[in-house]
């Protein structure tokens, strides 16, 4: 179990986070400059927080109240740097062996060989870092960090410098890591898909704070606030007021659009009539239907952008009060021939696919 509760104040930035990791992969997701890397550096001991405490399993690594601050070399934390930071003057094997100390020569060789096999580095042992591709360098960096058998592995944007094919293959390798590395893993990334695929829980960072930390499914299905929703690719937001609550559904009046929406409560408790809320809808869940009805808007297609498997459509909604409200929907490619700019559609928002954001 890693417990972190740290506070670091810089002239124009404040990091104030608390979280824990227990034998799992925790994804830290956030935009650049939100304090993700600083958090890792604090855990590794490269940066000293102003206040707080860090405990790794049964060892206190840092505690301002007890005046404990272990140097990086005594923390037993494996850190993979964003630029890998391999030793350019050592071969791949020497890089990996660097952190293995107090063992006989043959024991070191054995451990390096094992890691070479596990990370798929056979045949590259005697190459220098600049003779390796970015993907190979990353694998050497991971192997090097794992060599001293750290209690936690910290991965700082491990895929940011890679092309998408290599990235996918290395993601598989990180997933396979779980078969032989039983410690905790923290993965820092700005890519939602990467965080979702690799981690079991996600902490969403924004400007030095954690704005939501939950199981990854929960982050996607019920974002705590609009910032999380935007980061998890919700595209459409509507501000409204609850007018009625019945069974498992609520009715929300959207003044801007002059309509009432039926929304599934999805286990949301503590909702009250007249409470202002925000409704979020993913573009993929919006359907084009034949006739008007409940939860249906008339929209005019403004423009569309073609993706690999879908088409993103930007509609302006026909409403009584506001003509310029824009709705983004993603339709499968099969409907592509039917689309032309200026065309009118009826757009249906399924009650079960909308999320309620109370914050």
């Amino acid at each position, binding site marked *: 179990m890693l417990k972190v509760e740290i506070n670091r104040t810089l002239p124009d930035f404040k990091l104030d986070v608390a979280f824990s990791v227990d034998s799992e992969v925790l994804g830290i997701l956030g935009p650049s400059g939100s304090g993700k890397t600083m958090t890792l550096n604090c855990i*590794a001991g*490269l940066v000293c927080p102003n206040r707080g405490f860090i405990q790794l399993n049964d060892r206190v690594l840092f505690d301002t109240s007890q005046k404990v601050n272990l*140097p*990086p*070399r005594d923390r037993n934390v494996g850190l993979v740097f964003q630029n890998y930071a391999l*030793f350019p003057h050592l071969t791949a094997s020497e890089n990996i062996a660097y952190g293995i100390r107090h063992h006989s020569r043959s024991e070191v060789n054995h451990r390096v060989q094992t890691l070479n096999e596990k990370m798929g580095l056979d045949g590259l042992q005697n190459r*220098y870092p*600049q003779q390796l591709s970015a993907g190979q360098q990353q*694998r050497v960096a991971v192997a090097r*960090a794992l060599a001293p058998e750290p209690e936690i592995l910290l991965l700082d944007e491990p895929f940011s410098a890679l092309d998408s094919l290599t990235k996918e293959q290395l993601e598989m390798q990180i997933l396979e890591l779980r078969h032989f590395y039983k410690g905790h893993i923290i993965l820092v990334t700005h890519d939602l898909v990467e965080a979702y695929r690799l981690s079991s829980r996600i902490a969403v960072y924004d400007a030095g704070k954690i704005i939501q930390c939950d199981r990854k499914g929960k982050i996607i299905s019920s974002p705590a606030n609009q910032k999380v929703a935007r980061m998890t690719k919700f595209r459409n937001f509507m501000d409204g007021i609850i007018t009625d609550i019945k069974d498992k559904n609520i009715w929300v009046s959207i003044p801007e659009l002059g309509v009432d929406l039926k929304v599934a409560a999805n286990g949301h408790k503590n909702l009250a009539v007249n409470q202002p809320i925000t409704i979020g809808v993913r573009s993929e869940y919006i359907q084009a239907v034949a006739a008007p009805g409940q939860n249906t808007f008339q929209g005019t297609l403004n423009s569309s952008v073609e993706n690999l498997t879908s088409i993103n459509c930007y509609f302006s909604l026909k409403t009584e009060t506001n003509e310029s409200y824009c709705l983004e929907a993603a339709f499968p490619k099969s409907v592509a021939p039917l689309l032309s700019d200026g065309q009118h559609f009826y757009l249906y928002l399924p009650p079960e696919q909308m999320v309620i954001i109370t914050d």
Partner: protein
Amino acid sequence: MNEYLAPLWISFKTVLVTTAITFVLGIAAARWISRYSGKLKPVIDGAFILPLVLPPTVVGFGLLLLLGKHGWIGHPLSLIGTTIVFSWPATVISAAVMAFPLMYMTARGAFEQVDTNIEDAARTLGASEWRVLYSVTLPMAWPGVVAGTILCFARSMGEFGATLMLAGNIPGKTTTIPVAIYFAIVDGNMKEAVYLMIIVLCIALASLAALAYLKKPKPRFRALTVNPVPNNMLYTSGKKDSHIN
């Protein structure tokens, strides 16, 4: 022959000891200042470089005041019966003070080029500060360190002004080659001056060749040049490797 050999031997000893001292002190100072971020940084930095911009005679005179019988350092030393002025150690001290800025400046530049992430990586892998220095920082800064050493070597070999001020010209004791050449010419002894000049030229060329050889990366430091990749490794299509390139 003794009048040629004595200055040669004295210069040889002086250059060797001076280079060793400035190597250690220059690296230590460069390492310290490149990590130090206090307010006094520009002042300390300036003080370290000062001997380079001052005329050697001024440095020599300053050292004379400091180390002389009534100087801050010279007086306490004289109480325990040691005089530095006009002794062989004086040649080392004056040459070291003059050569130090060269080692300091080149080593500092080289250290500041080293990616701090790489040093941090060594720390997270359990390396002590000492091990970080000799296994990561120094090897990565090696070309700069060697260049600094060459400059120090050359500077202490040619040191004249400060040496004359502090160590004087005592034949067989403090007369280094440059001092010997100067006084040979003053005395009209052109033959001796030319012989000494030829000797200096040979030593300078030989040492430059030796240092150029040293600067060539050893296997340990090979990463600093482009390394030929063994043919059999360029096209590996091993089972493990082929699916991830």
